[in-house]
C-alpha cells in the first residue's frame, strides 16, 4: 500500500512537471508584419520584412517568402503543329540534350533524352493553354517552333525548392535538366506583378518566443545584464552606448569596489559583450513596444501538430514523427498479428508435444524477455547489413519492432487460446469437426478479443520503444512525412529523444509536450485493450 502511494506520488510529480513544462509549447508567438514580394526581396528574402521586425521573425518565415515569391520555370522547344489548336500538349515533343548543352565539368555524362511524358509532368497545363491563345492571336506562328520558358508544374516547383515532388523517374530527368540550366526559379510575376506588399502574422524566432512567454531567453537575459550594468555606473541605458566610456566607468567602479572589499565587485564586460547586450536591450524594448501595440501575439501552436521536424525550434512539429509512428506500427501490426496468431494457433492446437516444440516455446519466452536494444542490433546486422534494406526507413523500423513484438503477441495469443475451455473443443470434435474447423469455428471466435487485447498491448509497447530504433537509424532528422516504406522516417519517442538533445531551450517545452502526446496515445491504446478485454469476459 505504501509502495503504491509512493509510486502514485512519483507518477503525479512526473505528470505535473511534464504538463507544466509542456503547456507553454501549446502556444506560439507570432508577429504582425508586412511582407513585400519584389524581385529583389525574393532573392534576398530577409529584405522583404520591415527593418524593425527583420531580426525578430523566424528564419522559416523568411524562407517561405523566397518559396512563395518564386515560380519554377522550364525551358522547352514549342512546336506549333497543325494539331496544336485542338491539343496544345502536342507542342511538346521528346527532347534530347547533347554534351554541348551541359556545362563543361558535366560533359562526360551521357547525353540526356527526356520523354514527352516527363516533360509534360513538369509543365503546368495552363501555360500550354496560354501558348494556344498566343497562336490563335497570331496564326502565322503555326508550323514554326520556338524556345520558351514555361511555367513549371506544382511537382517541379516542389522539386526545385526542396528536392521532393515528381515521381522518381521524372526527378532523375529533372536533375539533369537542372544541370543543363533548363530549369530556374523566377520571381512570380503572375501572382505579384512587379511587387506586392501583404500584411500577415508570421512566426517569431524561438528566443523571442521564449521571452514573450516569460521564460529564460537570451534577449531577456542580456537586456537585464545591460540594464544592471548601466544602473551601477549611473549612466542612462541607450541602444548605442559609448563603449569605451562605459568600459572605463566600469573599471573605475570595480577598482573602487575592490578597494572597499565589496563581496561581489562588478564584472567589466568586453567590447563585444557590451555591444551585444546593448543590442539586446534595444531589441527587448522593441518587443515590448510591439507587444503593447498588439503586433505580437500568442496563438494556439498549430505548427507543433502540422509541421514536420525542423532545426528551428519555433517551426519544429510532430507531424512527420506521428505519421512515421503510424506507418511503423501499421507495418508491425501487418507483420506481427498474422504470424503471431498463426504461430500461437499452431503451438497451442496442432503442435505435438516433443522436444522441438519445447525448444521453440522456451525460445519464444526468452525472446520476450530480451533487452529491446538487442533487437536493434539484430535489425542492424540482419536487415540492414545482410539484406541491405535502406537504413532509417519505415521498413527497417517496422521489421525491427516486429521482431520485438512478435514473441509478446505469440505469448498473449497462446494465453488467450488456452483460456478457451477444452469442453468447447470436445463439443466441436464430437460434432465431427476437423481440427481446423474447431479452431476456426469455436476456438478463435471465443479467444479473438483476448488475442486482440494482447496484440494491442504489444503494439502499444512497440509504440514507446526507442532503443532498437536508434540502432537502425530512426532518429534521423526527418522534416517531411515519409511517402513510401523505404523513405526515411522517425517515430514519436525517437523525435522526443532528438529534441531533448538539441541545444536551444525552446526545444525543451516541445519535447515535454511531445511526451504528453505520446503518453496520451499509449494510454488510448491501453484503454482500447482494456475495453476489448472487458467485452470478452464470457461465461462458460
Amino acid at each position, binding site marked *: 500500500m505504501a509502495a503504491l502511494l509512493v509510486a502514485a506520488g512519483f507518477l503525479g510529480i512526473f505528470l505535473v512537471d511534464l504538463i507544466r513544462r509542456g503547456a507553454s509549447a501549446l502556444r506560439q508567438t507570432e508577429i504582425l508584419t508586412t511582407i513585400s514580394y519584389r524581385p529583389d526581396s525574393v532573392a534576398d528574402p530577409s529584405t522583404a520584412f520591415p527593418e524593425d521586425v527583420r531580426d525578430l521573425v523566424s528564419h522559416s518565415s523568411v524562407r517561405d517568402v523566397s518559396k512563395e515569391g518564386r515560380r519554377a520555370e522550364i525551358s522547352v522547344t514549342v512546336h506549333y503543329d497543325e494539331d496544336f489548336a485542338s491539343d496544345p500538349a502536342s507542342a511538346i515533343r521528346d527532347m534530347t540534350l547533347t554534351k554541348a548543352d551541359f556545362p563543361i565539368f558535366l560533359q562526360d555524362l551521357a547525353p540526356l533524352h527526356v520523354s514527352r511524358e516527363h516533360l509534360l509532368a513538369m509543365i503546368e497545363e495552363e501555360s500550354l493553354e496560354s501558348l494556344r491563345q498566343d497562336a490563335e492571336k497570331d496564326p502565322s506562328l503555326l508550323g514554326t517552333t520556338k524556345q520558351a520558358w514555361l511555367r513549371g508544374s506544382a511537382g517541379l516547383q516542389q522539386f526545385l525548392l526542396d528536392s521532393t515532388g515528381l515521381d522518381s523517374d521524372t526527378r532523375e530527368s529533372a536533375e539533369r535538366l537542372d544541370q543543363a540550366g533548363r530549369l530556374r526559379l523566377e520571381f512570380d510575376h503572375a501572382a505579384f506583378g512587379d511587387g506586392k506588399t501583404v500584411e500577415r502574422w508570421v512566426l517569431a524566432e524561438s528566443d523571442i518566443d521564449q521571452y514573450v512567454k516569460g521564460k529564460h531567453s537570451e534577449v531577456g537575459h542580456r537586456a537585464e545584464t545591460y540594464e544592471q550594468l548601466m544602473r551601477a555606473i549611473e549612466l542612462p541605458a541607450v541602444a548605442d552606448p559609448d563603449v569605451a566610456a562605459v568600459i572605463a566607468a566600469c573599471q573605475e567602479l570595480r577598482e573602487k569596489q575592490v578597494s572597499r572589499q565589496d563581496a561581489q565587485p562588478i564584472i567589466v564586460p568586453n567590447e563585444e559583450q557590451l555591444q551585444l547586450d546593448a543590442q539586446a536591450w534595444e531589441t527587448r524594448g522593441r518587443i515590448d513596444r510591439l507587444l503593447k501595440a498588439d503586433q505580437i501575439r500568442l496563438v494556439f501552436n498549430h505548427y507543433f501538430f502540422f509541421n514536420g521536424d525542423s532545426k528551428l525550434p519555433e517551426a519544429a512539429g510532430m507531424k512527420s514523427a506521428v505519421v512515421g509512428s503510424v506507418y511503423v506500427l501499421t507495418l508491425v501490426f501487418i507483420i506481427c498479428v498474422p504470424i503471431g496468431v498463426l504461430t500461437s494457433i499452431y503451438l497451442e492446437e496442432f503442435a*505435438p*508435444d516433443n522436444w522441438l516444440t519445447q525448444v521453440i516455446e522456451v525460445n519464444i519466452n526468452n525472446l520476450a524477455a530480451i533487452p529491446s536494444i538487442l533487437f536493434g542490433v539484430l535489425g542492424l546486422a540482419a536487415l540492414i547489413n545482410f539484406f541491405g534494406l535502406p537504413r532509417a526507413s519505415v521498413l527497417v523500423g517496422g521489421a525491427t519492432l516486429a521482431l520485438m513484438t512478435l514473441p509478446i503477441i505469440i505469448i498473449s495469443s497462446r494465453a488467450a487460446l488456452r483460456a478457451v*475451455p477444452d*469442453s*468447447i*473443443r*470436445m*463439443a*466441436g*470434435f*464430437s*460434432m*465431427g*469437426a*476437423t481440427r481446423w*474447423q474447431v479452431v476456426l*469455428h*469455436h476456438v478463435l*471466435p*471465443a479467444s479473438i478479443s483476448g488475442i486482440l487485447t494482447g496484440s494491442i498491448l504489444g503494439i502499444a509497447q512497440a509504440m514507446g520503444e526507442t532503443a532498437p530504433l536508434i540502432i537502425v537509424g530512426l532518429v534521423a532528422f526527418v522534416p517531411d512525412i515519409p511517402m513510401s516504406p523505404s523513405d526515411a522516417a522517425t517515430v514519436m519517442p525517437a523525435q522526443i529523444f532528438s529534441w531533448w538533445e538539441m541545444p536551444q531551450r525552446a526545444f525543451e517545452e516541445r519535447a515535454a509536450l511531445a511526451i504528453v502526446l505520446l503518453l496520451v496515445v499509449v494510454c488510448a491504446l491501453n484503454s482500447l485493450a482494456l475495453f476489448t478485454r472487458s467485452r470478452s469476459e*464470457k*461465461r*462458460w
Partner: protein
Amino acid sequence: MRELPPVPDISRDEAISEFAKQVSRRDRPEDLDDSPLLICRDFSVFYGDVAAVKNLSVEIPRGEVTSIIGPSGCGKSTFLNAVNRMTDLIPGCYTRGLIQLDGEDISRPETDVVWLRRRIGMVFQKPNPFPKSIYANVAYGPRLHGMAAGRADLDEIVESSLRAAALWDEVKDRLHAPALGLSGGQQQRLCIARILAVEPEVVLFDEPTSALDPVSTSKIEDLIASLRGRYTVVIVTHNMQQAARISDYTMFMYAGVMVEFGGTADMFIKPKENRTELYITGHFG
C-alpha cells in the same frame, strides 16, 4: 413436471425388487434388427504403459439403451471416448483390438474420424454448448456436414431436433438468444439436440446428468428413453437407479475389465458375478 420416483431404501432385497419393477415396466421396441450395432473384440485402451481398458469384448445391441456402470476410474468413460475416437486427441493414448460399427472396423488409424463422429455422437458430463445462439448451436452440425439444402431446410432440422430433445417449447421464442443463457438442464438438452441434428446412429452419454439437479435429470432421462429405437444409446452413469430406470442392457466394469454384461433386469435382480452384486448393493465403489 414428472413426479420423481421414490428413493429406494438401502436394504438389498427392497432395492432389487424396486429396480425389478422399474425394469419390467419398460416396453420393448418391435421391428428391430437383431444384429448388434457395435462389436468390440479384445479391445484395450492404453495411456502410455497403463491399460485403462483391458481386453474388452462386448456386443452393444442396436436400438437399445445400454448403460455402463462401475466405480470411478474403472475405465468406463475411457471406453466411451474410445468408441468415437475422442481418445485420439489425448497425447500418448492408443488402442488395441477391434471395434466394429455395423460391421465396419472403426478402430483402425486410417478410419475417417470426422465421418465416424458424425455417426456416433457424444454428450458430455458438463453441458458444453458453443458460446453462440441456440439456433447456431443446433444448426452447426448440419451446416458443417452440408446436410441442409437451404435456410428453410435448416430451420426444419433445427425445429425437429429441438423437438426431439424436448426443448422446442421452451426456446422457440428465443432461438437467437445466447445458448449460455439457458439453465444447466436446458443446456444439456441443447447439446443432445445438437447431436440429433446430424442424425447419428449411436449417441454416447458420458454421465449426462451428474452436473444437473433432479428435475433436469428426470427430463434428460425421459429424453434418453424416448431415443430408444431410433438411436442406439450408450450411457455411462454413476447412478445405478438411473441405469435401472433407463437402460435395457447393463455392462459392469471394474478396474478396466468388463465384469458382466446382460439385460438390465437380470443384472439387477440376479447378477451372475459376486463383484457385480457387491457393487449394485452398494458394498463398494
